């Protein structure tokens, strides 16, 4: 029973990271109706930036905030410089650009920082909280960070005029222009926010999986599974999906299929969702009068 509980809780912790990255995917999807395959590598790159900042002697939370700000700016820059010229192009060109970004970011990170695996600091104490032994402080902290990000994202989309404008721009760009929304900037803003959210996911997962240019490849696959399971247009769904996939992966890995086959769990989830319920568990199937 004790091992079961421990496995369950550590599943929740990794699930929190999947959830954060899934939130970033949902964010870009909200802004552009596209799924960004380079999301994981962007998060990895942000984590390296954080690592450089920490190594330069900046205190952890200062480096954390600075990394979010830098990532936000980079996300906007990528949208404006790389994606804007092809925004009227077919979806396929976007997908190819995403894959190109993925490969380029990965190689550039390897070139600058080398492929050596490095430790990454955790901001949370090393001894478990409240004297229990089921879940480490870092795991608990990572879950808390994920939930905080979720609340912020939800409040942004639900309660701010800017969040509403972003949803409108994604849904119906022409009508959005007709009410005076600068649609291009809404897309860029979506990219900035998604990159910042991804950065927080990267910084939370790096102490667990260690820092190297390939650290996010598996995580991204789980995040896809999470976002699809929860519904790609629903931030809550994505976070639920993240925790669910994390726990499922951990329990199956521990009791059923072993560590080597764990990644297939993500693929099985993706295929199952696409076949059984393409809109995901909480995705809105839109009612429309024709």
């Amino acid at each position, binding site marked *: 029973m004790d091992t079961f509980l421990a496995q369950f809780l550590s599943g929740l912790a990794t699930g929190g990271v999947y959830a954060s990255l899934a939130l970033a995917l949902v964010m870009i999807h909200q802004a552009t109706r596209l799924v960004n395959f380079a999301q994981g590598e962007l998060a990895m790159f942000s984590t390296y930036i954080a690592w450089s900042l920490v190594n330069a002697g900046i205190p952890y939370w200062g480096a954390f905030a600075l990394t979010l700000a830098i990532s936000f700016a980079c996300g906007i820059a990528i949208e404006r410089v790389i994606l804007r010229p092809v925004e009227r192009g077919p979806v396929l060109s976007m997908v190819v650009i995403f894959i190109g970004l993925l490969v380029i970011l990965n190689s550039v990170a390897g070139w600058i920082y080398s492929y050596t695996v490095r430790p990454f600091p955790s901001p949370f104490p090393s001894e478990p909280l409240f004297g229990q032994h089921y879940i480490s402080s870092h795991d608990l902290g990572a879950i808390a960070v994920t939930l905080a990000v979720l609340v912020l994202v939800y409040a942004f989309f639900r309660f701010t*005029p800017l969040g509403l404008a972003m*949803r409108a721009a994604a*849904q119906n760009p022409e009508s959005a*222009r007709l009410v005076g929304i600068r649609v291009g900037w809404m897309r860029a803003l979506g990219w900035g926010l998604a990159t910042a959210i991804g950065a927080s996911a990267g910084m939370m997962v790096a102490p667990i999986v260690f820092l190297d240019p390939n650290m996010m490849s598996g995580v991204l696959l789980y995040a896809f599974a999470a976002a699809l399971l929860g519904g790609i247009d629903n931030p809550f769904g994505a976070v639920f999906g993240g925790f669910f996939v994390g726990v499922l992966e951990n329990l199956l890995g521990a009791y059923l299929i072993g560590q080597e086959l764990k990644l297939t769990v993500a693929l099985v989830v993706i295929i199952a969702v696409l076949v059984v319920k393409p809109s995901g568990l909480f995705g809105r199937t839109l009612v429309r009068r024709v």
Partner: protein
Amino acid sequence: MGELLTARGLHAAYGATQVLHGIDFDVAAGSVTALLGANGAGKTTTLRALCGMVRTRGTLRFDGERIDGCATEDIVRRGIAHVPDGRGTFLDLTAEENLRLGGYTRGGRRALGPDIERMYGHFPRLKERRAQQAGTLSGGEQQMLAIARALMLRPRLLLLDEPSFGLAPKVVADIFQILATINREEDVAILLVEQNASLALEFADHAFLLETGRIAIQGEARALRSDAAVRRSYLGY
């Protein structure tokens, strides 16, 4: 009354297909102008040209300033609201969110509250439906929502593209009555595209008639109503 909008030598094209061949017209401040014509004459294109939604040539002035070549969102911000062909409703958002978006350029939640209430005053049906997904509203309700959304901008010129399209006569009558009130009370000029020529000429002060991208006749709506050619071709009596 001064001219609010003037178009001189306005051409418009979709790719290689020329739709407007140099038209001149004015819309006076606070007036109602009807734009009539058969299918494909270029009515919708004229409205799209005014909002920078299609490639144009010629000069457009709004309130004395050039707006040709400006981006759609900048033209809108100067006070031209457009209810486009097909209504342009944000179908996945609620009715009230649609209204909030209409006032997007005018600032936050608090500033918009009284305006939203004013729209509910004009269109009480929308108040009942405020939390409903806009895509589930009836055709008439969606048209009301589209007009209310456009008015949230506090425009000086309202462009309406076939507001009567697909609606029951009773609903059309209601909508035009509300439009008349808004035109009178809020000093909003209206440029109206309509298939239903008798309705439009009834409602408008001025009118012009497009034929394959050129203006065939223009003048006071009353005069056009009694013009023999217009009656034969567009009014059917």
